[in-house]
């Protein structure tokens, strides 16, 4: 073959690799996953590799598909909450609250202000723990384990607060349709105060480890970039969309749960690369702390549940001593209360973006149709486009910076 043609072909390829004289490039097929410690979940990517460069990727999803939408068609409304826990299990309280708000929207329930503020505190704590996991894992994938082990203690402290509020830690089932299951006790306020006092210092230390770190820059800047336009076309939401420069946040666009009362910023990035995604999450943690502080300072007095005896369980001592309460208790637990017919779409800002619930009710005890708009499922399809032409090690970092959670992916 013509020698100049070979030289031209050589020049096109990244790096300084040799091309054989017959100009044939051999591609390797590599299975990344489904079980691989670097993918933090059950994802399979069949990569086509040219040396260490990713040429293309084919994704397989559905390894932990649990058919929640089918199960939900047979469950009374209150039994669907534990299913939502298992979508994005890094921030299950947000999923729980989103589901309650959807049902409350269907029923037309007006909540007391105190419930909104309590929910905001819980949701923002969940957002902090979600982003902490994601950001510290980006550190792990770039070779910095210290930050991860350090902030995980503080995720534990957030879980301690959840445990005080509802009794469970990871899959929380926190709150009820129509309010919260109980008021915050003094211990919750004490833990919250301690958290707000001590966490910012820890977080600054964590930020100092990574934010201006040369090695971290080299690994994250310009890896896995996506433009704002493509991100929007791919249905990105949440931190991944904001890193690409589009300031869409459901909390601001369609405020729910009294988010309009709070003063906070939406951090955005520019390039939509791994570093921007990391920095947007870092910024959001600080904003969440601000929101929690405001909610605590302005916590309104009053009841922690709405006046909806048809859907909110009566107190246990009333059930034992009061006929009417016993009847309501029985009817709620058996799912015998009437629900209006209608269709509702409600979205909340989950850890990964717009978590939507599309609920169709035919008046029966279970939804006629329930669809979860799972942000991970929608933005993960852009992954091949984002890693194409990059190194394999960058593909792993990109995956963790997108914060793809297997539970939310597979539904």
């Amino acid at each position, binding site marked *: 073959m013509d020698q100049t043609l070979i030289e031209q072909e050589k020049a096109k390829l990244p790096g300084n690799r040799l091309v054989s004289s017959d100009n044939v490039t051999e591609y390797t097929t590599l299975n990344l996953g489904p079980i691989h410690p670097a993918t933090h979940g059950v994802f399979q990517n069949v990569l086509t590799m040219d040396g260490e460069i990713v040429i293309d990727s084919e994704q397989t999803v*559905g390894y932990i598909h649990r058919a929640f939408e089918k199960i939900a068609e047979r469950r009374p409304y209150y039994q669907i909450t534990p299913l939502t826990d298992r979508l994005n299990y890094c921030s299950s309280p947000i999923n729980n609250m989103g589901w309650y708000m959807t049902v409350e929207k269907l029923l037309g329930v007006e909540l007391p202000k105190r419930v909104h503020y309590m929910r905001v505190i819980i949701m923002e704590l969940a957002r902090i723990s979600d982003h902490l996991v994601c950001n510290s894992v980006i550190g792990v994938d770039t070779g910095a384990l210290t930050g991860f082990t350090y902030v995980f203690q503080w995720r534990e402290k957030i879980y301690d607060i959840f445990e005080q509020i509802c009794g469970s830690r990871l899959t929380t089932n926190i709150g009820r349709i129509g309010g919260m299951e109980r008021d915050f006790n003094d211990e919750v306020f004490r833990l919250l105060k301690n958290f707000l006092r001590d966490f910012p210092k820890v977080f600054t230390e964590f930020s100092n480890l990574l934010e201006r770190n040369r090695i971290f820059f080299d690994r994250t800047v310009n890896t896995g970039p996506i433009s704002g336009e493509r991100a929007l076309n791919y249905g990105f939401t949440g931190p991944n969309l904001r890193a690409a420069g589009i300031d869409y946040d459901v909390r601001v666009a369609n405020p729910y749960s009294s988010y309009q009362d709070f003063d906070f910023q939406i951090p955005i990035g520019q390039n939509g690369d791994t570093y921007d995604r990391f920095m947007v999450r870092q910024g959001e943690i600080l904003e969440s702390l601000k929101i929690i502080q405001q909610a605590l300072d302005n916590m309104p007095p009053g009841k922690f549940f709405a006046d909806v005896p048809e859907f909110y369980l009566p107190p246990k001592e009333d059930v034992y001593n009061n006929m009417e309460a016993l009847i309501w208790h029985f009817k709620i637990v058996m799912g015998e209360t009437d629900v209006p017919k209608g269709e509702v779409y409600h979205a909340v800002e989950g850890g990964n973006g717009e978590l939507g619930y599309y609920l169709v009710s035919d008046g029966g005890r279970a939804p006629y149709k329930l669809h979860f708009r799972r942000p991970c499922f929608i933005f993960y399809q852009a992954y091949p486009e984002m890693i194409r032409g990059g190194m394999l090690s960058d593909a792993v970092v990109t995956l963790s910076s997108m914060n793809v959670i297997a539970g939310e992916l597979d539904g």
Partner: protein
Amino acid sequence: MSAITNEFLLERLNQEFGAKVISAELPYGMLSIVIDPSVIVDMLKWLHEDKILKFRFLTDICGSHYPDLKDKELCVIYHLQSMENNIRLRIKAFLPVSNPEIQTATSVYSSANWMERETYDYYGVIFKGHPNLKRILNVDEMDYFPLRKEYPLEDATRTDKEDQYFGR
């Protein structure tokens, strides 16, 4: 930020598509229209390109099954959003279960790819022109569409469980 009302949106849709917009509702503040399935791609493209409406964001696609509606058993539901105008729109297209075919939206929104695969996987809706229409969440060998209402959640061969005590 220009504010667009649901009434204005419906008027524009009626002007552009006339009788193809079969009916319109406003449940819980979101405009919800039923359209002729044949115009779905034209409508999505028009909504996407329109200088005022700017529905650049496809929130969601899902399906639904209504066995009692003759020749309109399956429904494909599109949720769209215009971020600049902060307005949402729901579009429904009913299809007969004997021939559930509709044009794919992947040419307008890249995000439609997996959403349509999921809808195919659950309900068996065929999206014509889809680049890779195969099952996504369930196993490839599955020969039925599990979210259709004729498939009960519980094992249908069991006799020890009565439906009326365990849900529908």
